[in-house]
């Protein structure tokens, strides 16, 4: 299946072509070229998926295929960095997800970004991102993954800062880059520790014998935990940074400053799930260190609840969606965290997590693209500028509603099935976390429908100066396609393809869990309907009755302020400033002094180099005479 390399090379070529030609191409041409490239990519990815999943099973599982593996840098026999393409069920699944969403976003952007300055640059960056993300998922070894991991970080940075004349966009892109970069530091250290003990970067070798790491690191421990656990926890830190887990989530809401299709592609469907993918990829290793999985569960659960509460009170629709994304990714993390062992039932969370990743990518992309269409129509991100839009934008309305039902977990939409698997998996492991996550699911339904009603129902604001209208065809077609996928994706026998040990798993619904989750989702929806269907005083009164909580949630529980305090007041003021002073006055001062002394001395003696030949002659003859005198005196 060597042809899969096209999936990587084509977006790369597109990036170079569009990036180098830039304004030499007309915007229209650039958009069409980029989209065509993506169409070919998608076709190849689908072919790959078809071919991969129709091959005969060996021992009941689809064997992993290393399509290409090139030794890129060789340092020693053990230490060499390879580049290649590794196909197994999850990477093939990711290829399909990424190419599909990316293609949708490419098409959508033709309409959404129409007339923007830097349209060609935008498409070039989109191609760069697609290439990096695809390279990340097909990585054969952890180092290749790390390389592409950083590349998606860069392209995310570039795309968030696309409107680089806007100060908010610039600071948001910086924030995203620095926070994820900080997390990646942990990732890198984790990689180094891991490969130091296991003597390999290769995923296949690492996961084939997960016990090796325990035997290799036996006896080595740090702060009471084994080195293996530390290595994996640090790797998880990288994943948590990319996937916006608490408390490294602060960059994601700000990243909404980028163009909306970018938010759909990068900050909802693909890049932010890289952390989940990373944990899934190394899952056999995590299995041997249950304490790390427990840690992941706690982090995920806290993040899910936190983000859901914050999402309930935000007024910027993209921020609501951003917090909803954080919350949903936390669901996936929790599912991975509760999975134990590579047994089908104990490892149910693994399958559930991947399933939710798949469905979430589709309906969250749909939500973002829908939000983009709404923003396109009313020229504002704020809820207060919206309301009653269902009559103006019927297609957007219907597709948005489908996505909301899916994320709320109403059958038969895809979100119900995947979320249900997650809840079942969590319930199996621990009742406490099960109830916790069910509550979060209810909150999800509430805040999504709050958003939905506020946008499409509520009361109309004054649209007299500008009547909203339905989005152009290039924007509605991706919405319809994604909505269709959302409707049917739940019926895909996902467990047949992806499961923790590769054996086919037949998804069956746990009636108790399913019923509970539907009921709680309906409660959430009803509450939202009661509060937000028509304009009324109830939401305000409710907010007033819980003023403290409301304000805290509105300010995202002051996490950003805490970061601000820690970085500025403590790190900058107490550490950086003295160091800067030392650098400026002592180190630079030494250098300046040397330079000043040199300059002063040369200024003094430059008179000798006057250029007046008579002075030279005088000095020369005087010197000659002195030498003559010395010679005569000595001999």
């Amino acid at each position, binding site marked *: 299946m060597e042809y899969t390399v096209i999936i990587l090379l084509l977006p790369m070529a597109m990036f170079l072509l569009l990036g180098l030609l830039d304004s030499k191409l007309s915007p229209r041409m650039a958009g069409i070229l980029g989209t065509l490239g993506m169409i070919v990519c998608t076709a190849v990815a689908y072919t790959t998926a078809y071919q991969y999943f129709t091959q005969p099973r060996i021992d009941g599982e689809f064997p992993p295929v290393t399509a290409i593996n090139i030794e890129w840098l060789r340092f020693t026999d053990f230490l060499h960095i390879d580049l290649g393409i590794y196909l197994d069920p999850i990477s093939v699944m990711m290829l399909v997800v990424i190419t599909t969403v990316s293609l949708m976003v490419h098409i959508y952007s033709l309409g959404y970004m129409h007339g923007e300055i830097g349209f060609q640059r935008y498409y070039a960056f989109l191609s760069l991102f697609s290439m990096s993300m695809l390279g990340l998922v097909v990585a054969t070894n952890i180092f290749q993954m790390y390389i592409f991991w950083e590349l998606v970080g860069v392209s995310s940075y570039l795309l968030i800062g696309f409107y680089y004349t806007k100060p908010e966009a610039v600071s948001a892109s910086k924030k995203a880059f620095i926070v994820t970069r900080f997390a990646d530091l942990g990732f890198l250290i984790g990689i180094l520790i891991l490969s130091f003990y296991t003597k390999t970067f290769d995923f296949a070798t690492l996961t084939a014998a997960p016990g090796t790491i325990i035997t290799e690191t036996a006896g080595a421990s740090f702060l009471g935990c084994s080195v293996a656990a530390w290595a994996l926890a640090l790797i998880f830190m990288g994943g948590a940074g990319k996937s916006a887990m608490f408390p490294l989530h602060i960059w994601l809401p700000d990243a909404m400053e980028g163009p909306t299709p970018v938010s759909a592609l990068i900050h909802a469907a693909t890049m932010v799930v890289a952390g989940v993918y990373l944990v899934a990829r190394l899952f056999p290793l995590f299995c041997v260190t249950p304490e790390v999985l427990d840690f992941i569960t706690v982090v995920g659960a806290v993040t899910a609840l936190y983000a859901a509460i914050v999402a309930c009170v935000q007024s910027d629709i993209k921020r609501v969606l951003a917090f909803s994304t954080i919350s949903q990714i936390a669901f996936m993390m929790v599912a991975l965290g509760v999975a134990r062992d590579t047994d089908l039932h104990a490892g149910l969370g693994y399958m559930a997590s991947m399933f939710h990743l798949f469905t979430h990518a589709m309906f969250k992309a749909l939500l973002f693209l829908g939000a983009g269409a709404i923003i396109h129509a009313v020229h504002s991100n704020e809820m207060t500028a919206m309301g009653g839009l269902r009559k103006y934008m019927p297609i957007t309305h219907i597709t948005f509603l489908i996505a909301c039902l899916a994320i709320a977990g109403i059958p038969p939409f895809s979100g119900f099935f995947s979320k249900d698997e997650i809840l079942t998996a969590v319930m199996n492991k621990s009742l406490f976390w099960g109830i916790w996550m069910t509550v979060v699911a209810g909150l999800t339904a509430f805040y999504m429908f709050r958003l939905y009603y506020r946008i499409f129902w509520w009361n109309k604001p004054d649209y007299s100066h500008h009547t909203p209208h339905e989005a152009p065809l290039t924007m509605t077609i991706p919405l319809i396609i994604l909505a269709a996928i959302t409707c049917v994706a739940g019926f895909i026998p996902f467990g047949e393809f992806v499961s923790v040990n590769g054996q086919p798993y037949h998804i069956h619904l746990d009636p108790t869990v399913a019923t509970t989750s539907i009921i709680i989702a309906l409660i959430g929806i009803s509450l939202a309907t009661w509060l937000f269907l028509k304009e009324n005083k109830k939401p305000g009164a409710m907010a007033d009755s819980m003023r403290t909580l409301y304000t805290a949630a509105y300010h995202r529980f002051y996490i950003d302020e805490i970061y601000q305090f820690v970085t500025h007041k403590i790190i900058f003021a107490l550490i950086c400033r003295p160091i800067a002073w030392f650098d400026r006055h002592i180190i630079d001062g030494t250098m300046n002094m040397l330079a000043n002394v040199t300059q002063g001395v040369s200024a003094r003696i430059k008179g000798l180099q006057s*250029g*007046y030949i*008579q002075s030279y*002659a*005088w000095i020369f*003859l005087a010197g000659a005479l002195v030498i003559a005198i010395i010679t005569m005196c000595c001999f």
Partner: protein
Amino acid sequence: METPMIYYIIISTIMFFAGVYGFITRKNMLMMLISIELMLNAVDINFAVFNRYLYPDAMEGMIFTLFAIGIAAAETAIAIAIIINIFRHIRNIDAENLDDMKY
């Protein structure tokens, strides 16, 4: 009774150092050139005198003097051409004013 050789040489020494003095103290380039001629002349005398008094049978010193006179002529011609050219440009031939190409 011969004139002692040393007398000639002392005369040429005085002439030489008169040239040195002129070269160092005069600003006018033509004056500097004249001083150089003085020095050259003093050296010429030395050649001739040493040849005559120390090696009367040879004539290398004298031939050298001949060549030196020829070269002095060439050098003076070129120097004066340059000086006149400078004069045309800056209407002045003081050595101190020639700093356009300095630094």
